[in-house]
């Protein structure tokens, strides 16, 4: 076990869980604008936290793998710049949308839909990046380059489709859209099958017994929502986010102990010595601060509706 990897991957898991829930909401905003309030009640306070967890993942990644920064810069910079543009566009449009008043051609709906499109495309870009990190498709470590044409293998495409299908399948759970209850389990099941298939297509060695855990957890979420009596457990947004984070965290065999198509042993590129000690010290202090603030948030939020005066 590599503690530094675990901390960095935990930050990624929460970031990815938050981003996936935003993608779920973004789809809702595009296809069901009249019932947007269910989506916005969740997304509006959360989008700010998603970005911060993204920053945490990036900085802990820099800290954890200093020797990887040059190859990462060579291989992924163009893709990362596309990611960044979409990220700023998404943040700008949702923050403008929150408080905009109708004047001229620009209004709340256009801005929220811009946010939704930027978020979904951002999700696709992140999935391209992740599939490259998992299976190594499109990545040439020797020449330090990434080719989107080489990336577009069947395994990568099935990875994208499978993950997006999972997001669409689980979206009714997060937003408690009971009219779509019957679709949850079939779509989620299909998403799981495609995702597992994509891992096998990328590299059969990725399918370890550990992979049963995320599969079972994902299906359990869908199954719990299928019955009205148990649906309340998983429609609780904090529970849903926590479970989704655990599912993503349990997918770590895809990149550990080896990433990029089993070509990169993580332990050989992890920081060590005094820097590793500093990493853990800072993680403990930062983690305590984060836990404290999240506890305060839970206490305040549990008092009922936000009661924002804005």
């Amino acid at each position, binding site marked *: 076990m590599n503690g530094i990897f675990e901390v960095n991957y935990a930050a990624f898991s929460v970031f990815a869980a938050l981003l996936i829930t935003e993608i779920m909401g973004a789809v809702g905003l595009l296809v069901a604008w009249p019932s947007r309030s269910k989506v916005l009640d969740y997304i509006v306070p959360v989008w*700010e936290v998603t970005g911060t967890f993204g920053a945490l993942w990036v900085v802990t990644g820099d800290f954890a793998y200093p020797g990887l920064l040059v190859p990462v810069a060579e291989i992924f910079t163009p893709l990362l*710049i*596309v990611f960044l543009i979409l990220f700023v566009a998404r*943040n700008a449009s*949702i923050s403008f949308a929150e408080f*905009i008043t109708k004047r001229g051609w620009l209004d709340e709906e256009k801005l929220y839909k811009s946010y939704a499109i930027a978020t979904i495309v951002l999700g696709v870009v992140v999935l391209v990046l992740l599939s490259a990190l998992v299976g190594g498709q499109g990545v040439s470590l020797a020449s330090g380059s990434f080719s989107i044409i080489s990336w577009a293998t069947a395994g990568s495409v099935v990875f994208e489709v499978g993950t997006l299908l999972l997001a669409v399948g689980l979206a009714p759970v997060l937003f408690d859209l009971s009219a779509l209850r019957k679709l949850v389990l079939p779509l989620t099941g299909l998403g799981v099958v495609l995702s597992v298939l994509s891992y096998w297509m990328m590299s059969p060695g990725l399918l370890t017994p550990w992979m049963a855990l995320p599969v079972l957890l994902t299906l359990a979420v869908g199954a719990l929502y299928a019955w009205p009596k148990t649906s309340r457990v998983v429609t609780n947004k904090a529970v849903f986010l926590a479970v989704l984070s655990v599912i993503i965290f349990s997918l770590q065999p895809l990149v550990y102990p080896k990433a990029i198509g089993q070509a990169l042993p993580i332990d050989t590129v992890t920081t060590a010595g005094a*820097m590793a000690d500093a990493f853990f010290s800072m993680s403990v202090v930062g983690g305590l601060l984060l836990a404290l603030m999240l506890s305060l948030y839970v206490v305040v939020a549990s008092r009922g509706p936000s009661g924002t005066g*804005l």
Partner: protein
Amino acid sequence: MVSTSIALILLISISEFLSVRGNDPVYNALARRLSKVFVVSFGVGTASGIVMAVELVGLFPSFMTLVASTGAIVLLYAEISAFFLEVLALVLYVYYWNSFKGKYSHWVVSLFVVLGTLASAVFITMVNAWMNTPNGYDVSAFVNSGFKTVTGVEPFAAFLTVSTVSQVFHVLVTTIFAGTMVIGAYFAYWFVKSRDAGEKAMYGRALKILGVIAVVTIVLAGISGSEEAGALLVNQPLKYAAIEANTVPGTNLPDHFFGSVVNGTYVGGISMPGMQALLARFETGISTLPGLSQFPASTWPPLLVNTTFNVMTVGGLALGVFMFVFLVSLVRKRRPYESRRLLYLWIPAAVLAMLVYQLGWATDEVGRQPWIVYNVMTVAQAANTSDALLVPGVIIVLFYLVVVPATFYFYSRVFQGSSKEAPA
């Protein structure tokens, strides 16, 4: 954007405090309306921070490898922790405004946002200080290994380099001052333009708070600027020689203004005999000042930094005079924040303040050239020279040329859009 964000949250917090203490609905409405603007500012600002973090890896990978192998990354980690404090406190502050029961409890949350915002600024400035005066690892071993091996790492040493205190002090107060002036210009404009008595009362109150912050910070900017010049003289003598345009070392050197160095000789401009030596002795006790001739010409920064430094100091003095007039008028109960003459002047003063602030950064960064980490790694050695960066790089610049003005436009639109709100 950082400067306006910091000034905004200070204004919001002080406004809410005054509204609670004096039960003043105008201050309350001001805090509520500005908090919406702050969310927009945070939304674009936080994304831009991530852009910076990722871009640094893409554009300067060797530099970031050094950062990630030394205490500088610890500072960035600390900054992220501050960021979390800011974002979670902000979510509570904005979206759960009415959920707090105690008289001052909601206002206390604003202090956490202030703390998180200021701490983020402090930690990122510490990274810059570390770039100016690197510490916490064996520099010569690193250079001798061809930038391959970092040894003797002390991860927490980067929190306190020899230039940290003076630089953080100066950057913090000048950042607050510049942001305060810019936001003040907005309120000054609307105070003069508005015919609505209620709105004018709100703008006047905002200007009163901003005026006081600006007076305090311009005084501190002068003090910290002097400290910073002294620290430069001691820690970065080449940069000092360049910004003062000292061609040769000496004991009784003049202050040079707006000239240039041609063939190793200072020409044109104004020279104030002995002034530089006098100030340096007063500040540091050092009587022999460095000159460019002591250093290889290949390590000189562009000598344009003498001009940027001069505009910064002269502009800073002009702003000091402006704020002094504001202070005198305030003390004499002339309500300077309602004086049309002063408010008209505030707008060009804000432009000057932002120019001075940007030139300060230009002086710092250009003055360190050719180094990205002083005396360790040059910008050329750190840079990613891949052609693949060109197109996305141009796109991101064009994108920001749209985003930044759009953000300031939305600041105004969001603030004005909620003008019909009844004060709660």
